[in-house]
Protein backbone atom coordinates (compact mmCIF):
# COMPACT_ATOMS: atom_id res chain seq x y z
CA UNK A 1 0.00 0.00 0.00
CA UNK A 2 1.14 3.54 -0.81
CA UNK A 3 0.70 6.22 1.83
CA UNK A 4 0.06 9.91 1.28
CA UNK A 5 -0.87 12.97 3.28
CA UNK A 6 -4.11 14.19 1.76
CA UNK A 7 -4.96 17.86 1.33
CA UNK A 8 -8.52 18.06 -0.06
CA UNK A 9 -8.79 21.86 -0.20
CA UNK A 10 -11.92 23.84 0.64
CA UNK A 11 -13.96 23.13 -2.50
CA UNK A 12 -13.55 19.38 -2.40
CA UNK A 13 -13.86 19.02 1.36
CA UNK A 14 -16.86 21.21 2.19
CA UNK A 15 -17.68 23.20 -0.93
CA UNK A 16 -19.16 22.55 -4.33
CA UNK A 17 -16.78 19.76 -5.31
CA UNK A 18 -17.49 17.17 -2.58
CA UNK A 19 -18.00 14.55 -5.29
CA UNK A 20 -14.34 15.00 -6.24
CA UNK A 21 -13.31 14.19 -2.67
CA UNK A 22 -15.63 11.17 -2.43
CA UNK A 23 -14.56 9.74 -5.75
CA UNK A 24 -10.85 10.37 -5.12
CA UNK A 25 -11.10 8.48 -1.82
CA UNK A 26 -13.13 5.67 -3.39
CA UNK A 27 -10.78 4.99 -6.30
CA UNK A 28 -7.77 5.24 -3.98
CA UNK A 29 -9.20 2.39 -1.90
CA UNK A 30 -9.49 0.29 -5.05
CA UNK A 31 -5.92 1.16 -6.04
CA UNK A 32 -4.50 0.44 -2.61
CA UNK A 33 -3.42 4.02 -1.93
CA UNK A 34 -3.97 5.40 1.56
CA UNK A 35 -5.04 9.06 1.66
CA UNK A 36 -4.76 10.27 5.21
CA UNK A 37 -6.15 13.79 5.57
CA UNK A 38 -3.88 16.44 7.07
CA UNK A 39 -5.30 17.36 10.49
CA UNK A 40 -6.50 20.90 10.99
CA UNK A 41 -5.31 22.17 7.60
CA UNK A 42 -6.29 25.66 6.51
CA UNK A 43 -7.26 27.23 3.18
CA UNK A 44 -4.23 27.53 0.88
CA UNK A 45 -5.21 31.13 0.07
CA UNK A 46 -5.50 30.37 -3.64
CA UNK A 47 -5.00 33.15 -6.19
CA UNK A 48 -7.07 35.80 -4.35
CA UNK A 49 -4.98 35.86 -1.18
CA UNK A 50 -1.66 36.02 -3.01
CA UNK A 51 -3.08 38.88 -5.09
CA UNK A 52 -3.89 41.10 -2.12
CA UNK A 53 -1.34 40.15 0.55
CA UNK A 54 1.50 38.03 -0.72
CA UNK A 55 3.39 37.44 2.51
CA UNK A 56 0.21 36.55 4.42
CA UNK A 57 -0.85 34.21 1.62
CA UNK A 58 2.44 32.32 1.55
CA UNK A 59 2.38 32.04 5.34
CA UNK A 60 -1.07 30.45 5.15
CA UNK A 61 0.27 27.92 2.69
CA UNK A 62 3.43 27.39 4.75
CA UNK A 63 1.42 26.46 7.85
CA UNK A 64 -0.01 23.50 5.92
CA UNK A 65 3.44 22.48 4.71
CA UNK A 66 4.85 22.68 8.24
CA UNK A 67 2.03 20.49 9.57
CA UNK A 68 2.52 18.00 6.73
CA UNK A 69 6.28 17.79 7.24
CA UNK A 70 5.80 16.08 10.60
CA UNK A 71 4.42 13.07 8.74
CA UNK A 72 7.23 12.67 6.23
CA UNK A 73 4.97 11.70 3.32
CA UNK A 74 4.24 13.24 -0.07
CA UNK A 75 1.20 15.50 0.15
CA UNK A 76 -1.41 14.97 -2.54
CA UNK A 77 -4.21 17.36 -3.43
CA UNK A 78 -7.01 16.98 -5.98
CA UNK A 79 -7.22 20.77 -6.45
CA UNK A 80 -5.11 22.51 -9.08
CA UNK A 81 -5.15 25.84 -7.22
CA UNK A 82 -3.94 24.26 -3.96
CA UNK A 83 -1.32 22.40 -5.98
CA UNK A 84 0.09 25.58 -7.50
CA UNK A 85 0.00 27.65 -4.31
CA UNK A 86 1.66 24.99 -2.14
CA UNK A 87 4.32 24.29 -4.78
CA UNK A 88 4.91 27.98 -5.32
CA UNK A 89 5.48 28.42 -1.61
CA UNK A 90 7.99 25.56 -1.63
CA UNK A 91 9.95 27.02 -4.53
CA UNK A 92 9.95 30.58 -3.14
CA UNK A 93 11.23 29.33 0.21
CA UNK A 94 14.08 27.61 -1.61
CA UNK A 95 14.96 30.46 -3.97
CA UNK A 96 14.65 33.54 -1.75
CA UNK A 97 16.39 33.36 1.63
CA UNK A 98 15.18 36.79 2.80
CA UNK A 99 11.60 35.71 2.10
CA UNK A 100 12.18 32.41 3.91
CA UNK A 101 13.44 34.32 6.96
CA UNK A 102 10.14 36.21 7.18
CA UNK A 103 8.02 33.09 6.71
CA UNK A 104 10.10 31.26 9.35
CA UNK A 105 9.53 34.10 11.79
CA UNK A 106 5.78 34.08 11.16
CA UNK A 107 5.56 30.29 11.52
CA UNK A 108 7.55 30.48 14.76
CA UNK A 109 4.88 32.80 16.15
CA UNK A 110 2.54 29.83 15.78
CA UNK A 111 5.06 27.38 17.25
CA UNK A 112 5.84 25.82 13.86
CA UNK A 113 8.91 25.34 11.70
CA UNK A 114 9.27 24.19 8.11
CA UNK A 115 12.47 22.78 6.64
CA UNK A 116 11.20 22.52 3.06
CA UNK A 117 10.81 18.77 2.96
CA UNK A 118 7.27 18.22 1.71
CA UNK A 119 6.78 17.21 -1.89
CA UNK A 120 3.39 18.44 -3.11
CA UNK A 121 1.69 16.31 -5.75
CA UNK A 122 -1.49 16.58 -7.78
CA UNK A 123 -3.90 13.64 -7.71
CA UNK A 124 -3.48 13.25 -11.47
CA UNK A 125 0.30 12.94 -11.02
CA UNK A 126 -0.08 10.29 -8.31
CA UNK A 127 -2.60 8.29 -10.34
CA UNK A 128 -0.65 8.34 -13.59
CA UNK A 129 2.94 8.16 -12.29
CA UNK A 130 2.82 6.33 -8.94
CA UNK A 131 -0.09 3.97 -9.57
CA UNK A 132 0.35 3.84 -13.35
CA UNK A 133 -1.85 3.15 -16.35
CA UNK A 134 -1.41 -0.62 -16.27
CA UNK A 135 -2.56 -1.01 -12.68
CA UNK A 136 -5.48 1.33 -13.38
CA UNK A 137 -6.42 -0.69 -16.47
CA UNK A 138 -6.24 -3.91 -14.41
CA UNK A 139 -8.98 -2.61 -12.06
CA UNK A 140 -11.42 -1.76 -14.84
CA UNK A 141 -14.61 -3.84 -14.54
CA UNK A 142 -16.74 -1.90 -16.99
CA UNK A 143 -14.58 -0.74 -19.89
CA UNK A 144 -15.86 2.57 -21.25
CA UNK A 145 -15.66 1.43 -24.90
CA UNK A 146 -17.15 3.92 -27.32
CA UNK A 147 -17.27 6.84 -24.90
CA UNK A 148 -15.59 9.93 -26.34
CA UNK A 149 -14.15 12.06 -23.56
CA UNK A 150 -12.52 15.49 -23.79
CA UNK A 151 -9.55 15.60 -21.41
CA UNK A 152 -9.65 19.05 -19.80
CA UNK A 153 -6.48 19.87 -17.89
CA UNK A 154 -7.02 23.60 -17.40
CA UNK A 155 -4.06 25.73 -16.39
CA UNK A 156 -2.61 25.19 -12.98
CA UNK A 157 -2.06 21.45 -13.03
CA UNK A 158 0.56 21.92 -15.76
CA UNK A 159 1.65 25.57 -15.42
CA UNK A 160 3.99 27.01 -14.30
CA UNK A 161 6.27 23.99 -14.59
CA UNK A 162 6.08 22.03 -11.35
CA UNK A 163 6.34 19.09 -13.29
CA UNK A 164 4.87 15.96 -14.41
CA UNK A 165 3.40 16.90 -17.78
CA UNK A 166 3.90 19.30 -20.68
CA UNK A 167 2.72 22.85 -19.90
CA UNK A 168 0.85 23.34 -23.16
CA UNK A 169 0.22 19.92 -24.67
CA UNK A 170 -0.16 17.53 -21.74
CA UNK A 171 -0.89 13.83 -22.31
CA UNK A 172 -1.31 12.13 -18.92
CA UNK A 173 -5.10 12.54 -18.73
CA UNK A 174 -5.48 11.43 -22.35
CA UNK A 175 -3.64 8.21 -21.55
CA UNK A 176 -5.60 7.71 -18.35
CA UNK A 177 -8.88 7.99 -20.29
CA UNK A 178 -7.58 5.43 -22.79
CA UNK A 179 -6.62 3.05 -19.97
CA UNK A 180 -10.29 3.04 -18.89
CA UNK A 181 -11.27 1.87 -22.37
CA UNK A 182 -12.69 5.24 -23.39
CA UNK A 183 -11.52 7.36 -26.28
CA UNK A 184 -9.80 10.68 -25.56
CA UNK A 185 -11.25 13.25 -27.96
CA UNK A 186 -8.87 15.64 -29.70
CA UNK A 187 -9.20 18.84 -27.68
CA UNK A 188 -6.94 21.67 -28.83
CA UNK A 189 -7.91 23.93 -25.91
CA UNK A 190 -7.32 21.25 -23.30
CA UNK A 191 -4.87 23.33 -21.28
CA UNK A 192 -6.53 26.74 -21.69
CA UNK A 193 -8.18 28.78 -18.99
CA UNK A 194 -11.83 28.44 -17.89
CA UNK A 195 -11.91 31.96 -16.46
CA UNK A 196 -11.04 30.85 -12.94
CA UNK A 197 -12.45 32.95 -10.13
CA UNK A 198 -13.12 35.83 -12.52
CA UNK A 199 -16.42 34.03 -13.21
CA UNK A 200 -17.52 35.76 -10.00
CA UNK A 201 -16.28 39.29 -10.64
CA UNK A 202 -16.16 39.46 -14.45
CA UNK A 203 -18.75 36.95 -15.56
CA UNK A 204 -19.08 38.04 -19.21
CA UNK A 205 -15.40 37.63 -19.80
CA UNK A 206 -15.27 34.18 -18.22
CA UNK A 207 -18.38 32.99 -20.08
CA UNK A 208 -16.61 33.71 -23.34
CA UNK A 209 -13.66 31.54 -22.33
CA UNK A 210 -16.01 28.75 -21.22
CA UNK A 211 -17.88 28.98 -24.52
CA UNK A 212 -14.62 28.57 -26.44
CA UNK A 213 -13.78 25.44 -24.43
CA UNK A 214 -17.22 23.88 -24.85
CA UNK A 215 -17.10 24.65 -28.56
CA UNK A 216 -13.67 23.05 -28.93
CA UNK A 217 -14.76 19.91 -27.08
CA UNK A 218 -18.14 19.55 -28.82
CA UNK A 219 -16.82 20.20 -32.31
CA UNK A 220 -14.36 17.32 -31.85
CA UNK A 221 -17.15 14.92 -30.98
CA UNK A 222 -16.73 14.75 -27.20
CA UNK A 223 -19.72 13.40 -25.26
CA UNK A 224 -18.42 14.73 -21.95
CA UNK A 225 -15.47 16.50 -20.39
CA UNK A 226 -13.33 15.35 -17.51
CA UNK A 227 -11.53 17.86 -15.30
CA UNK A 228 -8.87 17.75 -12.62
CA UNK A 229 -9.89 20.93 -10.78
CA UNK A 230 -12.93 21.94 -8.67
CA UNK A 231 -13.12 25.44 -10.11
CA UNK A 232 -12.85 24.25 -13.72
CA UNK A 233 -15.68 21.80 -13.02
CA UNK A 234 -17.93 24.46 -11.51
CA UNK A 235 -17.31 26.93 -14.30
CA UNK A 236 -17.89 24.44 -17.10
CA UNK A 237 -20.87 22.71 -15.45
CA UNK A 238 -22.77 25.25 -13.33
CA UNK A 239 -22.33 28.05 -15.87
CA UNK A 240 -23.05 26.00 -19.00
CA UNK A 241 -26.69 27.13 -19.04
CA UNK A 242 -25.51 30.76 -18.78
CA UNK A 243 -23.25 30.20 -21.79
CA UNK A 244 -26.15 28.70 -23.73
CA UNK A 245 -28.35 31.67 -22.89
CA UNK A 246 -25.76 34.33 -23.64
CA UNK A 247 -24.46 32.85 -26.90
CA UNK A 248 -27.68 31.11 -28.02
CA UNK A 249 -25.94 27.76 -28.04
CA UNK A 250 -27.20 24.37 -26.95
CA UNK A 251 -24.32 22.60 -25.21
CA UNK A 252 -25.25 19.68 -22.98
CA UNK A 253 -21.83 18.37 -22.07
CA UNK A 254 -21.58 16.67 -18.67
CA UNK A 255 -18.41 17.64 -16.81
CA UNK A 256 -17.01 14.87 -14.62
CA UNK A 257 -14.04 14.78 -12.31
CA UNK A 258 -11.48 12.33 -13.68
CA UNK A 259 -11.82 10.36 -10.45
CA UNK A 260 -15.55 9.93 -11.11
CA UNK A 261 -14.87 8.54 -14.57
CA UNK A 262 -12.35 6.12 -13.07
CA UNK A 263 -14.95 5.09 -10.50
CA UNK A 264 -17.51 4.38 -13.21
CA UNK A 265 -15.01 2.15 -15.01
CA UNK A 266 -14.15 0.42 -11.71
CA UNK A 267 -17.86 -0.34 -11.25
CA UNK A 268 -18.24 1.75 -8.06
CA UNK A 269 -21.59 2.84 -6.64
CA UNK A 270 -23.28 6.23 -6.95
CA UNK A 271 -22.74 6.93 -3.24
CA UNK A 272 -18.98 6.70 -3.81
CA UNK A 273 -18.99 8.88 -6.89
CA UNK A 274 -21.65 11.58 -6.51
CA UNK A 275 -22.41 11.62 -10.22
CA UNK A 276 -25.82 13.12 -9.45
CA UNK A 277 -24.15 16.28 -8.14
CA UNK A 278 -23.41 17.25 -11.74
CA UNK A 279 -25.70 19.98 -13.02
CA UNK A 280 -25.54 18.87 -16.64
CA UNK A 281 -26.78 15.28 -16.19
CA UNK A 282 -24.45 12.42 -17.13
CA UNK A 283 -26.93 9.52 -16.73
CA UNK A 284 -27.62 9.19 -20.43
CA UNK A 285 -24.03 8.93 -21.63
CA UNK A 286 -23.05 6.60 -18.78
CA UNK A 287 -26.17 4.40 -18.89
CA UNK A 288 -24.60 1.49 -20.73
CA UNK A 289 -21.66 1.35 -18.29
CA UNK A 290 -23.66 1.42 -15.03
Amino acid at each position, binding site marked *: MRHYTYFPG*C*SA*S*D*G*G*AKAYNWSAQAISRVLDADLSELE*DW*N*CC*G*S*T*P*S*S*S*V*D*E*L*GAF*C*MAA*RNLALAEKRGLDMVTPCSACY*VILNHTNS*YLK*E*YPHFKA*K*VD*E*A*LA*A*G*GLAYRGGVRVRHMLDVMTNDIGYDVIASKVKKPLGGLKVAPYYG*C*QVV*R*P*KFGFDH*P*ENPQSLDKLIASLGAEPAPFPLKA*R*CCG*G*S*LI*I*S*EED*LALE*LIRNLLDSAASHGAECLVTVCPLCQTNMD*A*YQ*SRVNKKFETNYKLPVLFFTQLMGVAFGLEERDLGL*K*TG*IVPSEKILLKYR
Partner: protein
Amino acid sequence: MLDEICAIPGGEGIRLCIQCGTCTASCPNADKMEHTPSQLIAMARADMRDELLSSNAMWYCLSCYLCTVRCPRGIKQTDLMHAFTSLAVREGLSHAGTFTPTMYRSFNHFACALGSLPEFGFMTWFYLLSNPFRAWRMIPVALDLLKRGRLSIRARRLTPEGTDQLKAILDKAESLGGFS
Protein backbone atom coordinates in the same frame (compact mmCIF):
# COMPACT_ATOMS: atom_id res chain seq x y z
CA MET B 1 9.86 51.45 -8.84
CA LEU B 2 12.21 49.05 -10.60
CA ASP B 3 14.17 48.43 -7.39
CA GLU B 4 10.94 47.92 -5.49
CA ILE B 5 9.76 45.27 -7.98
CA CYS B 6 13.14 43.57 -8.14
CA ALA B 7 13.12 43.13 -4.36
CA ILE B 8 9.89 41.11 -4.54
CA PRO B 9 10.33 37.36 -5.00
CA GLY B 10 9.65 36.64 -8.67
CA GLY B 11 10.05 40.31 -9.61
CA GLU B 12 13.77 40.36 -10.36
CA GLY B 13 13.30 39.19 -13.95
CA ILE B 14 11.70 42.49 -14.94
CA ARG B 15 15.13 43.83 -15.92
CA LEU B 16 15.48 41.08 -18.54
CA CYS B 17 12.40 41.99 -20.61
CA ILE B 18 13.09 42.59 -24.31
CA GLN B 19 9.52 43.77 -25.08
CA CYS B 20 8.92 40.93 -27.54
CA GLY B 21 5.22 40.84 -26.67
CA THR B 22 4.98 37.07 -26.22
CA CYS B 23 3.20 37.55 -22.88
CA THR B 24 0.65 39.87 -24.44
CA ALA B 25 0.05 37.57 -27.39
CA SER B 26 -0.46 34.62 -25.01
CA CYS B 27 -2.81 36.37 -22.58
CA PRO B 28 -6.50 35.36 -22.90
CA ASN B 29 -7.54 38.73 -21.49
CA ALA B 30 -5.02 41.15 -23.01
CA ASP B 31 -7.76 42.76 -25.12
CA LYS B 32 -9.75 43.63 -21.98
CA MET B 33 -6.83 45.35 -20.27
CA GLU B 34 -6.13 49.09 -20.32
CA HIS B 35 -2.46 48.19 -20.63
CA THR B 36 -1.10 44.93 -21.98
CA PRO B 37 1.21 42.74 -19.86
CA SER B 38 4.28 43.93 -21.81
CA GLN B 39 3.18 47.56 -21.44
CA LEU B 40 2.96 47.09 -17.68
CA ILE B 41 6.59 45.99 -17.64
CA ALA B 42 7.61 48.98 -19.74
CA MET B 43 5.67 51.27 -17.41
CA ALA B 44 7.37 49.83 -14.34
CA ARG B 45 10.75 50.38 -15.97
CA ALA B 46 9.80 53.95 -16.87
CA ASP B 47 8.84 54.51 -13.21
CA MET B 48 5.20 55.25 -14.08
CA ARG B 49 4.15 54.04 -10.67
CA ASP B 50 0.74 55.64 -10.20
CA GLU B 51 -0.44 54.96 -13.75
CA LEU B 52 0.61 51.34 -13.42
CA LEU B 53 -0.92 50.69 -10.02
CA SER B 54 -4.24 52.30 -10.97
CA SER B 55 -4.52 50.32 -14.23
CA ASN B 56 -7.20 47.66 -14.43
CA ALA B 57 -4.82 45.36 -16.31
CA MET B 58 -3.38 43.18 -13.56
CA TRP B 59 -6.86 42.60 -12.15
CA TYR B 60 -7.78 40.82 -15.38
CA CYS B 61 -4.94 38.32 -14.95
CA LEU B 62 -6.40 34.81 -14.73
CA SER B 63 -3.23 33.28 -13.28
CA CYS B 64 -3.22 30.82 -16.17
CA TYR B 65 0.60 31.11 -16.36
CA LEU B 66 0.70 30.88 -20.16
CA CYS B 67 2.87 34.03 -20.32
CA THR B 68 5.20 32.62 -17.69
CA VAL B 69 5.89 29.35 -19.48
CA ARG B 70 6.35 31.08 -22.84
CA CYS B 71 8.54 34.05 -21.87
CA PRO B 72 11.83 33.63 -23.77
CA ARG B 73 13.63 35.54 -21.00
CA GLY B 74 12.27 33.41 -18.17
CA ILE B 75 10.37 36.28 -16.54
CA LYS B 76 7.75 35.17 -14.05
CA GLN B 77 5.09 37.42 -15.54
CA THR B 78 2.18 36.01 -13.53
CA ASP B 79 4.09 36.60 -10.29
CA LEU B 80 4.71 40.16 -11.45
CA MET B 81 0.96 40.61 -11.92
CA HIS B 82 0.38 39.43 -8.34
CA ALA B 83 3.10 41.81 -7.15
CA PHE B 84 1.36 44.70 -8.93
CA THR B 85 -2.04 43.85 -7.43
CA SER B 86 -0.56 43.51 -3.94
CA LEU B 87 1.18 46.89 -4.28
CA ALA B 88 -2.04 48.48 -5.55
CA VAL B 89 -3.91 47.12 -2.51
CA ARG B 90 -1.25 48.43 -0.15
CA GLU B 91 -1.46 51.88 -1.79
CA GLY B 92 -5.27 51.93 -1.75
CA LEU B 93 -5.39 52.05 -5.55
CA SER B 94 -7.20 48.78 -6.02
CA HIS B 95 -10.49 49.77 -7.64
CA ALA B 96 -9.75 50.22 -11.31
CA GLY B 97 -13.32 49.77 -12.61
CA THR B 98 -13.53 46.05 -11.94
CA PHE B 99 -15.02 44.08 -9.07
CA THR B 100 -12.08 41.68 -8.96
CA PRO B 101 -10.24 43.56 -6.15
CA THR B 102 -13.39 43.47 -4.01
CA MET B 103 -13.83 39.78 -4.77
CA TYR B 104 -10.21 38.97 -3.91
CA ARG B 105 -10.40 40.95 -0.67
CA SER B 106 -13.66 39.21 0.34
CA PHE B 107 -12.04 35.82 -0.32
CA ASN B 108 -8.93 36.72 1.65
CA HIS B 109 -11.03 38.05 4.52
CA PHE B 110 -12.80 34.69 4.95
CA ALA B 111 -9.69 32.61 4.33
CA CYS B 112 -7.73 34.48 7.02
CA ALA B 113 -10.52 34.77 9.57
CA LEU B 114 -11.82 31.18 9.36
CA GLY B 115 -8.92 29.30 7.84
CA SER B 116 -11.37 27.93 5.28
CA LEU B 117 -13.46 29.26 2.47
CA PRO B 118 -17.24 28.98 2.89
CA GLU B 119 -18.23 29.40 -0.76
CA PHE B 120 -21.80 30.50 -0.10
CA GLY B 121 -20.88 33.07 2.56
CA PHE B 122 -18.03 34.45 0.49
CA MET B 123 -20.13 34.82 -2.67
CA THR B 124 -23.03 36.43 -0.80
CA TRP B 125 -20.70 38.85 0.95
CA PHE B 126 -19.00 39.73 -2.32
CA TYR B 127 -22.26 40.39 -4.19
CA LEU B 128 -23.58 42.56 -1.38
CA LEU B 129 -20.37 44.61 -1.39
CA SER B 130 -20.18 44.93 -5.15
CA ASN B 131 -23.65 44.98 -6.64
CA PRO B 132 -26.66 43.38 -4.94
CA PHE B 133 -28.47 43.27 -8.30
CA ARG B 134 -25.89 40.75 -9.44
CA ALA B 135 -26.75 38.61 -6.39
CA TRP B 136 -30.31 38.51 -7.74
CA ARG B 137 -29.06 37.28 -11.09
CA MET B 138 -27.06 34.55 -9.38
CA ILE B 139 -30.13 32.89 -7.86
CA PRO B 140 -30.64 30.34 -10.70
CA VAL B 141 -27.01 29.15 -10.48
CA ALA B 142 -27.22 29.04 -6.68
CA LEU B 143 -30.44 26.98 -6.84
CA ASP B 144 -28.88 24.50 -9.26
CA LEU B 145 -26.00 24.02 -6.85
CA LEU B 146 -28.25 23.86 -3.79
CA LYS B 147 -30.51 21.19 -5.32
CA ARG B 148 -27.49 18.95 -5.83
CA GLY B 149 -26.09 19.48 -2.36
CA ARG B 150 -23.23 21.61 -3.59
CA LEU B 151 -23.92 24.78 -1.63
CA SER B 152 -22.89 24.44 1.99
CA ILE B 153 -24.10 27.19 4.24
CA ARG B 154 -21.96 26.08 7.16
CA ALA B 155 -18.22 26.76 7.04
CA ARG B 156 -15.64 24.13 7.89
CA ARG B 157 -13.95 25.25 11.11
CA LEU B 158 -10.43 24.57 12.33
CA THR B 159 -9.93 23.44 15.94
CA PRO B 160 -9.70 26.38 18.40
CA GLU B 161 -5.94 25.71 18.68
CA GLY B 162 -5.58 25.69 14.90
CA THR B 163 -7.53 28.94 14.57
CA ASP B 164 -5.33 30.63 17.19
CA GLN B 165 -2.18 29.30 15.57
CA LEU B 166 -3.18 30.59 12.14
CA LYS B 167 -4.06 33.97 13.61
CA ALA B 168 -0.70 34.22 15.41
CA ILE B 169 1.11 33.41 12.15
CA LEU B 170 -0.87 35.92 10.09
CA ASP B 171 -0.54 38.68 12.72
CA LYS B 172 3.20 38.15 12.74
CA ALA B 173 3.31 38.17 8.93
CA GLU B 174 1.47 41.48 8.89
CA SER B 175 3.92 43.02 11.34
CA LEU B 176 6.85 41.99 9.11
CA GLY B 177 5.86 44.59 6.53
CA GLY B 178 5.25 42.81 3.28
CA PHE B 179 6.73 40.43 0.84
CA SER B 180 10.06 41.97 -0.14
